[in-house]
């Protein structure tokens, strides 16, 4: 559908179209936050809530909205402390088995970071976004992105220097 307005032409996609366009990347993103075993659930729940709220189709930047919804859902999941330990362990094991060059202590240290910190790391190191772009994607300040990255690096420094 194409909607004409006075100052711009907006192409409106259906929710399902938007999901198909970005499902793979947001699932990767979810995996960076909660690990592969919970990623699909996180994406599904995030998308379901977005569709229910009818916010997606009318959003200026639906892709960024999906990322934020996935991050928000991941935070909720992350708060489940009962399962957190197991999830962190699986996250680390998964990463190390995929790339033996990844130092296990690094994987474990990253697994203990908050979802938002991990989101900043993933978007920076996988998607090669600048802090400003990461901030726009997640709707947080550029300074917050820098802070998360600085903390993550400092954590790793301490872990690896021990």
């Amino acid at each position: 559908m194409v909607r004409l307005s006075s100052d711009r032409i907006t192409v409106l996609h259906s929710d399902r179209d938007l999901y198909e366009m970005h499902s793979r990347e947001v699932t990767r993103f979810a995996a960076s936050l909660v690990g592969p075993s919970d990623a699909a659930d996180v994406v599904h729940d995030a998308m379901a809530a977005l569709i229910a709220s009818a916010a997606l189709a009318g959003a200026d930047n639906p892709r960024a909205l999906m990322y934020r919804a996935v991050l928000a859902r991941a935070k909720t999941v992350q708060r489940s402390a009962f399962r957190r330990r197991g999830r962190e362990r699986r996250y680390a094991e998964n990463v190390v088995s995929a790339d033996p060059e990844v130092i296990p202590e690094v994987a474990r240290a990253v697994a203990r970071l908050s979802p938002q910190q991990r989101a900043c790391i993933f978007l920076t190191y996988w998607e090669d976004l600048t802090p400003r772009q990461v901030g726009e994607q997640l709707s947080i300040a550029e300074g917050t992105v820098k802070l998360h990255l600085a903390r993550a690096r400092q954590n790793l420094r301490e872990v690896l220097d021990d």
Partner: protein
Amino acid sequence: MTDQKIDEQLRRLSRAVAETSPEPPELAADSPRTRAVRPVRATSWSFAAALGFGAVTLLAIAWWGPGSDEPEAPVGDAADSRWDWILEHSEATDDETLRIAEPSATPAPAPAFDYAALGTEQILVISDPAVPTLGVADTTLLAPFVYVGTVADTAAGGYLFHSDGGNGPIRSTLEDGTLVPVTCLTISVKPVTHCYPDIEPTANDGLISAVSGVSSSAPQGDVTVSMWLPRETAVAVLNLDDGRSFVQRPVAGVAIFVISDLDSAAVESAEARSASGEVIVHEGFLEQWASLLAEAELSERCQAADHVVATYQPRLGDDVRLENAWMVESTDPSLEAWYFISATVVGGPLDGQIATWEFPAFGGTVDPVNTPHLSIPANEVAAAFDIGTDPVLLDNVHPEAYGFTSWSEVEGFELSQRCVGLSAEVP
């Protein structure tokens, strides 16, 4: 390890995550999936702190997820942490350490009602961010410091700092050992540090995270009360039981009151009000302490502290009280104050749970002449439990952690319990 090596590791790790990502899920038909809500859980928070400032008491209290009959919150409702919110609305320096942020861009919503009638206003003045921030640039905290300013023309300003739990002397730990973020407010003139879990206080939680300071009879002078408020708070209100009330527009979600002459009064209640004047959260202090009084047995050997120190007010909810509280006295003999260690929560969703607080920071010397009524000196508590003196070790202070089923099994703690009633009775 060099920065280059760290970058390489993070790049490898991110690639490994992406390459092992599962296939995207199929979306359900037209309506979102409704999933059974997970059962309620309880987790104890525990905050240990020792910044060398003196007595610092921290709370650990059970925290519950959504009730079993409630739907899960919509995804978009999940709030960022308070600290993220502060940062996002602040101007941060551009270097990687981001030491200083100025929170004046995080004002309270403008009140659309006459809040002057609610009490005497104490204005929280935000200082020029160029002012040195009290020499707090402690890189071990990995935290930017937000200079808060002064209150009511009193040099009682402070700064907020944040710890993710894994760095520095501030630790916050779940029962399973997971480190969680915590945001602390230090009042510079005491100095006292108040810490809050990095979660949003809301009406559903039942209480503002309010803080009471030390006795006004102490040399440090006035009492400070800080509040960690819901973001939609336009006006914070503090009511004393002698009829005095104070109001303040919070900044960056924080209100700080400076109260003189609290010897003859007690903090009765605190409120967070929205822009329209609606009470978002009401926190009643004396109601809870009255319950303590009713349960307490007095001891002739026990003398009252003139003010109870509970530097973190638990979110207990309505119609909830603390019973069987155990306390220790301040390590600082100049502070006639008692600190909570643990108490049984009665009523509310945490009914039957034991809320635990950390001990005051160790290192202070107890003066046996000026504090003859100590049932057990706080600086001997560590030895009694053989938990050492390293504050980092002081997580999850509950009797089971030390092989007891109750504090009453520990010699010397009986009087502490009996002192609760007296301690809670503010003259």
